[in-house]
């Protein structure tokens, strides 16, 4: 190229040289960072899960061992059941009870009374 041409191209030289110059660089899409929170959520949940295990072993087992509710619960459950059982027997032992009627039918058929 002659000097004259060079003078004419002043201001456009950078443009002609093309992509080497920073001002022509296009903004390429940046590599997408891993913004997936699935693993983080899992790890947090796992941390909470283990904390709960620790809580059970550190506190609750001690309470269960020292202050068991079992004996009183058992006494209460058994006394309630005994009461209801007595009532059931009373209701079933009536002469017109369905139990007696059905038994009566069975025996009548069996012995052909």
């Amino acid at each position, binding site marked *: 190229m002659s000097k004259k041409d060079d003078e004419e191209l002043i201001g456009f030289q950078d443009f002609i040289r093309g992509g080497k110059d920073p001002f022509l660089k296009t903004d390429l899409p940046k590599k997408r960072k891993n913004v997936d929170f699935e693993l983080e959520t899992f790890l947090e949940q796992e*941390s909470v899960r283990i904390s709960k295990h620790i809580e059970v072993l550190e506190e609750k087992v001690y309470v269960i061992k020292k202050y068991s509710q079992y004996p009183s619960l058992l006494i209460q459950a058994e006394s309630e*059941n005994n009461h209801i059982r007595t009532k059931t027997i009373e209701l079933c032992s009536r002469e017109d009870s369905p139990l007696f009627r059905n038994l009566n039918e069975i025996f009548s058929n069996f012995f052909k009374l």
Partner: protein
Amino acid sequence: MAIPSFKQININNSTKESIYEQLEPSYLSQFPYILDISQLVDQFEAITYIEQFLEERYVTNYPYPIYIISSLKNYHGKFSIFESSSLCPIFFKQKAKQLNARENKIMQKIYLKQKNLKNLQGHNFENDLQEYSEKHKQIFYLHKERIFLSKLNKTLEKYYE
């Protein structure tokens, strides 16, 4: 530090020696495990030896579960059986990948808690928990009986009305 996701062991043979050899180097109870015995002919024998191995080493489902992949239908042991690994609970199905700073921080916490839990397990709380569960099962059965008898009484009372 590895994330606590499933590790799978495919059991190759149902003999005792082979199972012990395969399970010995694994980190059972530090990670959730899937033991695959579905391809074996004698799966019942394999499961018996697996149970024996775990009992000898005091390995339980606690804090990390052990799932067994098998086609056995009538198993009533300690461990959960699934027909394929895809049917196992998805909570521990995590892809291994490099952790970022935040995840690393949580992982360190988990690691410390795991250590704490391991130390606590040395106190043998299992018997207490077992006893507690058995006692409460007994109360549950009594309660169930009470509900049944109450219903029966109500029906009989209606009948006599």
